[in-house]
């Protein structure tokens, strides 16, 4: 792994708004306290805390098995934690299913993308929330409005510029980056509150990876806070406003990518360095 100090190419994109000088700390949107999740003898989450603030991109990093995916699944309703609470906009919530979390405006791009490969792009964009035809008969028989779905799919994927010719082609005919683009576009199009992405740039080439990063920034700039899990340190440092370091099922620290080095971040992540050894300004307040 290359260990660059501080964010790469700082001048190349507008830095996120300076939060430190603002007198009031940004409002937390999604919080978790003391989450525990066990699978048999394995403790995937060991009392982890979590905080996502408004308007930010929060990266979640950690070694394999640190509990990143499990944390994200708890926040997106895909699993129910054994203990602990999840707080959305200051109110405790209990997600019983992914649909439940989605109804609260939390959209997730899963690591394995959660697409039906044999179905078309348009169908995948609207999977589980198809646009129905108007009128009594449309609602009674739950007739889908294929034309409208095709139009909306086309317009919501237009910005992507990933060379998708037709929204009515099967997802399995797309490249990895294009599939990722479809999954990101799906969540960005529907999210009202929070977008969660598990490893959105893994398995992508340089060009497609950058395209997806750009897309994530656009989602944030629309006002939606984004949680992104990634193993790719340069990507994390390029895009994140704050970094949540997950270690052994707990939150080890939240750090400020503009102040901390990649070397220190990785050291905390792997346990080579204790979070107490970090200077106060390396930590995100």
């Amino acid at each position: 792994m290359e260990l660059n100090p501080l964010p790469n190419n700082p001048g190349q994109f507008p830095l996120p708004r300076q939060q430190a000088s603002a007198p009031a700390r940004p409002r937390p949107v999604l919080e978790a306290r003391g989450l525990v999740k066990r699978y048999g003898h394995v403790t995937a989450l060991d009392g982890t805390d979590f905080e996502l603030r408004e308007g930010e991109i929060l990266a979640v990093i950690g070694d394999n098995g640190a509990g990143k995916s499990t944390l994200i699944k708890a926040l997106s309703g895909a699993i129910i934690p054994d203990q602990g609470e999840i707080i959305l906009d200051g109110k405790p919530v209990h997600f019983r299913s992914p649909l439940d979390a989605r109804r609260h405006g939390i959209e997730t791009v899963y690591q394995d993308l959660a697409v039906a490969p044999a179905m078309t792009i348009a169908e995948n964009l609207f999977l589980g929330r198809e646009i129905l035809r108007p009128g009594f008969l449309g609602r009674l028989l739950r007739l889908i409005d294929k034309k409208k779905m095709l139009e909306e799919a086309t317009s919501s994927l237009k910005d992507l510029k990933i060379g998708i010719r037709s929204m009515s082609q099967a997802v399995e005919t797309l490249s990895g980056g294009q599939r990722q683009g479809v999954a990101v576009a799906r969540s960005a199009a529907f999210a009202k509150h929070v977008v969660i992405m598990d490893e959105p740039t893994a398995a992508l080439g340089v060009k497609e990876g950058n395209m997806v990063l750009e897309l994530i920034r656009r989602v944030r700039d629309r006002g939606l806070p984004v949680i992104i899990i990634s193993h790719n340190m340069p990507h994390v440092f390029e895009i994140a406003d704050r970094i949540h370091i997950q270690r052994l099922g707990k939150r080890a620290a939240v750090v400020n990518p503009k102040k901390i080095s990649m070397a220190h971040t990785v050291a905390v992540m792997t346990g080579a360095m204790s979070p107490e050894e970090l200077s106060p300004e390396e930590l995100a307040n």
Partner: protein
Amino acid sequence: MAEQQPSSAAQAPRKLLERLPSISVLGPFVALLLAVIFFSTQSERFLSGQNFSLILQQVLVVGVLAIGQTLVILTGGIDLSVGFVMALGTMVMSKFAVELGLPPLLAILCGIAVTTAFGLLNGLLITRIRLPPFIVTLGTMNIAFALTQIYSKAQTVTGLPEALLFWGNTFRLGETVITYGVVLMIALYLLMWFLLSETAPGRHLYAVGNNPEAARLMGIPTQRVLLLTYTVAGFFYGIAGWLLVSRTSVGDPNAGQTENLETITAVVLGGTSLFGGRGMILGTLLGAIIVGVFRNGLTLTGVSSVYQVLITGILVILAVTADQLSKRRS
């Protein structure tokens, strides 16, 4: 953009591969066409409206049973209880009408209710206890068979009232005599084709078969979709039972046994993937007709029916091989 124009050398083999799924769609058409051409040259009685009407009557019961089987296979499951559940339904219909003296329509409804309940039972065991469809339906197949034998004391029921024979009534289309049952079968296929391709629940059925985890994560109630699928399949087995008694005029406790596996043959020949999530309901109708054409054609040309079994077996292997190859590619 670079991604949009891969070198033509790389594109040529890819293009060829991209055409494979359409082979599984076109395959049934080609097989049917070849069979029809072949038998037309072998027997002059083959190519006539009357003979085609006969073929359709012969595939009627398998055809309607196979609608249910297609729904189940599209979800990635399989139903081995099909024909045996139908047999139980026919016994309930005919005995309720003849021996209990129930109004015929009520007796028919009771028969359909029994097959639908069996579908529901299959669905409950699969979704609630999470047993594999293969094992569940193997069990209910035996249960349905035993119940049929016990209830009927292995006796056929004759003297069925008019309503049970309704679908055997005919009308003329030019020279050709067509039974109401054939019209019902085609109507049911068109209806299911519409529901599967144009409604949200229809698309959910495909999604559940194609990627159950994705369907669940996207908020599709996958368990409810499966339960509904097996229940609706059970309903079709009841309709098929009514069509069967209309054709044979008796309630036969040993009915449905050959039809049972023939439904899977029809689905597979029709190009539906046994892995779930891919296929067309109208393909199943073609698949059923292909089997019927071989049986009819070989009979007309005086060839032993064993050859029909042989050819069907070979076609099934070919269809499943095409399915497996296109699956491996994606």
